[in-house]
């Protein structure tokens, strides 16, 4: 029998869809770990990112720290936390938080600082208070770029939570490592397909949320302006990258 038919047979087997090791339970665990990590990381990264983006203070420090954190190997940090802080749910969660803060922080900060400074000045000139400028002008205008950071962070968390099963905890990654130990390749492949599918579905959901939340004027959806807006969205990252390099 072909490996793919075996894998689909494994996926179709009702036994694998019930009980404590069943797919729904593992899926729920996966989402719970990811959600917990994201909530903690967002509670840290978003306020700091908003502050840095709005005031421009601490930018150099934040970029340096976030850049250094980004080079940290995921697996190494997870193992280190598990060894030093012991087993259980929280050590890997804290390790994941450390890895999730950089993309969220960068996304938030880049989003706020991507807003045209003339727009911000105009808002101030109209008499808006600083908080009004931030939440009424900078956040809505920077939302498209901020979503880039959010989606990167969410995908990274979902991917990394699969590794947590190695420690060993639950989540969809269990199928990969159990399959590896048992030399049960269909189980590994099924687990991998489930993780990839989960990542894609979650990203699609976020893309849908992005369409709902981001102003049409920013996201290249407005009729007539479509072509021009597409060109803008393509040129924006390049412009930001260049600006970041010379500022």
């Amino acid at each position, binding site marked *: 029998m072909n490996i793919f038919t075996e894998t689909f047979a494994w996926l179709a087997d009702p036994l694998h869809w019930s009980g404590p090791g069943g797919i729904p339970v593992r899926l729920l665990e996966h989402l719970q770990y990811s959600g917990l990590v994201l909530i903690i990381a967002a509670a840290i990264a978003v306020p700091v990112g908003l502050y840095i983006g709005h005031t421009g203070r601490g930018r150099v420090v934040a970029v340096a720290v976030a850049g250094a954190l980004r080079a940290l190997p995921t*697996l190494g940090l997870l*193992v280190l936390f598990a060894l030093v802080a012991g087993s259980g749910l929280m050590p890997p969660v804290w390790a994941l938080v450390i890895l999730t803060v950089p993309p969220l922080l960068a996304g938030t900060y880049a989003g706020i600082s991507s807003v045209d400074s003339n727009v911000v000045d105009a808002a101030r000139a109209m008499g808006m208070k600083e908080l009004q400028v931030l939440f009424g002008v900078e956040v809505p205008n920077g939302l498209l770029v901020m*979503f880039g950071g959010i989606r990167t962070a969410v995908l990274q968390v979902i991917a990394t939570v699969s*590794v947590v099963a190695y420690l060993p905890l639950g989540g969809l990654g269990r199928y*990969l490592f159990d399959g590896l130990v048992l030399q049960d390749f269909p189980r590994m492949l099924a687990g991998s397909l489930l*993780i990839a599918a989960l990542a894609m579905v979650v990203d699609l959901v976020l893309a849908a949320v992005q369409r709902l939340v981001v102003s049409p004027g920013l996201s290249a*959806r407005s009729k007539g302006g479509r072509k021009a807006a597409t060109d803008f969205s393509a*040129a924006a990252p390049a412009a930001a*990258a*260049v600006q970041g390099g010379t500022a």
Partner: protein
Amino acid sequence: MEWFLANSPMVFERAGQHLVLALVPMVLGLLISIPLAQFSRRHSALRQLVATVSSLLYTIPSLALFIILPPLLGTRILDPLNVIVALTIYAVALLVRAAMDAFDSVDDDLRQAAVAMGYKPAARFLQIDLPLSLPVMFAGLRVVSVSNISLVSVAALLGVGNLGMLFTDGLQRNFVTEVVVGIIAILLLAVVMDALLVILERVLTPWTRAGSVKPDAHAQSGAAFIADAKVHAGAGS
């Protein structure tokens, strides 16, 4: 430190494997991305397709991809080729967008001036478009370099040899030192690679600092960072 000195040949061997697994996909990714970006940039439908497919591929978690590839490629699960192909896919997904942005960043007036001066299309591409797009391209390359070096270690979970093995081994033996050495070694690799890319960029783009003050290293790493955050920004729309 004593452990490191006693085991340094092993660590260096693992670091060598690690570097190969991270660098080969980066180079392959670059070689695939440049023609792909140059070609699809001129056809808006294709451009949309490339952007969508690349962001879709980018969503697949690495550990899952390392396992999905063997039956597709006909390789064994331990084969380093799986890692190279998987990371090349990520590198292309990231670099093709970076390369399109990079070519877009070249001033159209310069292209027209080159045409007016009699440059043939191939010569214009090699001597005008490519060099001028380097700053944006390097921002993408630096992101790929750091993320590849970090991702390679995940392959150790499946038994593919690299510095990540210090983590799996350290966990099994409950030996923190080995894990710390692994983290430091990977960080060093990432920092050294990043520095080499910065130096290479400076050598290749001497005009960017003509008459300007010394570029701020932090701001430059910020550029790579923002490029990373933006991989998805354009993709979702």
